[in-house]
């Protein structure tokens, strides 16, 4: 999986303070946490698994070609603590999603936040680490 994409059509927002990295089991050093990418697309698949969940989003580029982006988050219980449920992302759900991209240019990122187009609901997976 060494696909590299020219991501000119993606908004690179610049340096951000990301706070908490993905904690499941592996290092997050393969992601560039000084950068964010934001894409609009539709949900292809919602994998709620431990130690990490993956939200797969199909994004159409300016050339009309579709690329499926993967956004990594924590496992189901941490997401539940953030108010994120299995039913929130059915296949075809439209959304805008932001993440810290892979350093190697592959279309994956740590999921930072998302907004569901239909109702404007916001999703912040890292809120699942709050103790309340």
């Amino acid at each position, binding site marked *: *999986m060494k696909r590299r994409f020219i991501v000119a059509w993606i908004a690179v927002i610049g340096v951000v303070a990301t706070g*908490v990295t993905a*904690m*499941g*089991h*592996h*290092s997050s*050093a*393969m992601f*560039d946490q000084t950068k964010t990418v934001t894409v609009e697309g539709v*949900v*292809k*698949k*919602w*994998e*709620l*698994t*431990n*130690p*990490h969940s*993956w939200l*797969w989003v199909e994004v159409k580029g300016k050339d009309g070609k579709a690329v*499926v982006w*993967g956004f990594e988050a924590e*496992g*189901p*219980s*941490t997401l*539940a*603590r953030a108010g994120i449920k*299995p039913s929130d*992302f*059915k*296949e075809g759900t439209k959304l805008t999603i932001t993440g810290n991209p892979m*350093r190697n240019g*592959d279309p*994956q990122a740590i999921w930072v936040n998302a907004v569901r187009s239909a109702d404007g609901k916001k999703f912040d997976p890292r809120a699942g*680490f*709050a*103790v*309340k």
Partner: protein
Amino acid sequence: MRFKRVILRAATLSALPLLLSACVSASSPPAVGPDPAVGPKRTKEQNIELGRQHKTAAELFKFLRDEAKGGKKLEWNRLPDWSGVYSRPLDRGFNFDIDQPREGPTTAKLTPDYQKKLDKRLADLKKGIEWDPISTCAPPGVPRWLTEPFLREFVVTPDQTWLINEMVNDIRRVYTDGRDHEPEEDRIPIPNGDTVGFWDGPRLIMHTNSLKSGIYQRGNPDYTDQVETVEIWEKADDKTLGAQVWVYDPPALVEPWYVYHAYGKLSDPPRIRYWDCGENKNNSVFQNKDGTTEFRDLGYQESKTEKGK
């Protein structure tokens, strides 16, 4: 005959309140809670000094047991209330010592070799080079176990207490039935080691040895397989369970590392589900020769799971 029956009825009636009381006691024992602790409460500075005064974790544990006059076995109707689901807050980062500034130097006093190791780890991290030893789904192990930010439950019984971390379905068993550690020649190092303890009122005081080497957390120092801990667990308030922890590890630490860990009780916790680290192949990673971490076979596949359908 009739006289006898009257006497029996009267006796039964007079005993009724007692019988009823016994039934109520059997179904819901009065929650009287544990006795007060015998040993004193200490400040962080006093605990740091207490660690310095004892050369080994075993010596410190013995001192605390003597101070508590041997401790007292819990009774079923006097258990401390550790019910609920807890988690370690991450608002101050996930260093082993949350008093350490997020990007600041470690509060551990490391030997020169282990300071060098840590310096290299932090320098590598800036270059995107990092490998976590639990990347292959190994358990975090003690003392790292204390830092993980996932859900925790605590099961207290007179003979054992179970400290449960959701991550990899991880249980630390603390034996409080009076047994000692395994004999030294029969010890087998395991991630959570061997833990024995005693109760001093509401405090669980415990000693762990037979541990494996590891890291305190990503971006934190290493510990060796000589590491041992002494811990005092106690409710700090209704919503907080705290652990005072001394770590002894002579090859890596110049002096014991004292750290306080606090776990907050969640008001609306989710269910804890089984943690199957291998259920999604997109989470499989490997270490490159340069030390970087790479996903093994990451990518979207049409029929990987049924989730989201």
